[in-house]
């Protein structure tokens, strides 16, 4: 009785304080091969009774096992997909119904043929399909279903909602919402534990900078509307400093807001420098020397920031 009261009080406290209890992923299978340190080449973690995350090297997807079958996301690459296929057969005998693509980049979505051969239908945003027509890759299974704004795939009581909020990281990335778990996934950004972590690709290749902040605002709006408290990271990340790698499988959905703030801070900081009359060529060095954002960006890396400042300066001058 006392325990029940204690748990109840803690729950009320967490609810009032705005904190949410995050699921604790449990490793159910892992590679015997070590990538480095204690990190295995791959691992499968169970997040809820029907939701699993699969990490291969630094990449991660997730899958849902419902009454009517399995929904997979981003097959990653041929080897990763082959391993997942083998491990999946140990977890369930349900058919693979769908493979959902988060965006068009090959390093996330190659290798799906092994699932296509089992009859899975592949789902992607329409613009991803156009990208693969522009630059085909035999290792990328073409989508059977394309959509423009929203699309939902279901396997019985479980579903995956796919939302398009305009170009962001490539021109077809979608936000994914897992139901009924109310957990989100945004490929390549918003990786737990902190959306203010230094980003990997500071040159923002294939990124539509003008729509990054609006994209994350829409994701935040959805998270609020659907009462999402948790996000799955599509990549491993780090805690406090880049040398301290962490799995980043799940984290607070607040990471979405942090990711938006990351981009807002950088854009606003560069704009302020330009407004002060600093020339475009001088902006990166000026901001590095002044220590701008050093205390806001976690794992601040001067060489990466120099590239990022240069990229944002170009964006503010050209609009692209």
């Amino acid at each position, binding site marked *: 009785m006392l325990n029940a009261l204690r748990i109840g009080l803690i729950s009320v406290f967490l609810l009032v304080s705005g904190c949410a209890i995050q699921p604790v992923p449990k490793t159910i299978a892992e590679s015997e091969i070590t990538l480095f340190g204690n990190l295995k080449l791959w691992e499968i973690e169970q997040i809820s009774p029907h939701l699993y995350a699969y990490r291969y090297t630094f990449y991660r997807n997730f899958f849902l096992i419902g009454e009517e079958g399995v929904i997979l996301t981003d097959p990653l690459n041929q080897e990763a997909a082959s391993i997942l296929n083998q491990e999946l057969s140990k977890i369930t005998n349900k058919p693979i119904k769908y493979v959902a693509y988060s965006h*068009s*980049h*090959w*390093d996330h979505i190659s290798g799906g043929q092994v699932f296509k051969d089992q009859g899975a239908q592949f789902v992607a945003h329409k613009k991803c399909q156009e*990208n*693969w027509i*522009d*630059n085909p*890759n035999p290792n*990328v299974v073409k989508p059977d279903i394309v959509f423009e704004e929203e699309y939902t795939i279901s396997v019985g009581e479980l579903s995956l909602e796919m939302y398009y909020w*305009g*170009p962001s990281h*490539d021109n077809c990335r979608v936000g994914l919402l897992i139901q009924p778990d109310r957990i989100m996934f945004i490929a390549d950004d918003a990786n737990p534990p902190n959306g203010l972590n230094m980003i*990997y*690709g500071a*040159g*923002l*290749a*294939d990124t*539509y900078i*003008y*729509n990054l902040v609006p994209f994350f605002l829409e994701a935040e709006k959805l998270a609020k509307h659907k009462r999402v408290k948790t996000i799955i990271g599509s990549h491993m990340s780090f805690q406090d400093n880049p040398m301290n790698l962490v799995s980043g499988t799940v984290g607070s959905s607040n990471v979405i807001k942090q990711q938006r703030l990351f981009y807002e801070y950088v854009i606003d900081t560069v704009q302020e420098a330009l407004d002060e009359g600093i020339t475009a060529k001088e902006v990166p060095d000026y901001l590095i020397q002044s220590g701008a954002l050093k205390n806001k960006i976690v794992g601040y890396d001067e060489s990466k920031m120099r*590239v990022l400042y*240069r*990229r944002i300066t*170009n*964006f503010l*001058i*050209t*609009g*692209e």
Partner: protein
Amino acid sequence: MGKQLVLFTTLLLFASGGWSETNIQTVSENIYVFSEIDNQGLIVSGSNGTVVIDPISEHTAKSIQEFLSVNDKNAVSHVVYTHSHWDRISGGEVFQKNGVKFISQETCRLFFEGNKNEAVVQPNLYFKHSYKIALGNSNIGLHYFGPSHGECMIVVHIEPENIFFVADLLSTNGPSFPNDPTLPYLRPATLMRFFSGIERMANQDNVNSFIGGQVEKNTFGSIEYIAKQREFWKLVQATAEEAEEKGNVNINNFIDMEKIDLEAFKQFNNYNEEDLSNIFRRYTSFLNMGR
């Protein structure tokens, strides 16, 4: 061999109260190159109207307006945007009046509508592949070969002078390293299509020279530079592919430069090893992502 164009007049106009200057040079009877700081655009004045290609800024647009008036040229009838970058195409409001066409390739719409800038007049005419402007004694062809420098850069073909205007990716000084080695706008997946498209058109129409979008020592570049510049990008991609295959790419996607034969790159203008490292970095990303 086509007729070699000769630069024969230079006019200099200063903006009242402005710190920068617009330089306008005569290229032929109907073509003028104007520039502001590093960027340059074109005026093509014909018997039926005048086309401004990339007005650059309000200040430059006013200088162009004054130049046309002083020299008794036709008023501006068309403003062509070679691509969506604001630093090339701002200031068109100076020419905005009934009937003036602001023309852009269709794909630019994404940026014009998604990221509006008050200094940029929105196009009122979009085209997909090609568009022709007839000015009586001059014809201007606008051609799109797919994403290259940004998503929507076009090539302008001016006749009867039979020259191209290419706003970016080419230097009139010869095949070169890019100005910005981080390649913020480069579209590697379709870049070769862009180059082969221009080369094909140059062959078909016997085009011998081009004018670029940046102020450089030479106003005209030889058409042969296009194939050589294509070779530069081909070499970059092949080197990045080889480095990937040999495992010479680190976790941050940078190539181990000590394992690269740099000799072939030294023939290109503005060779710089550090720049090359950044260029490769974009290409290793491209090879991973497909974009």
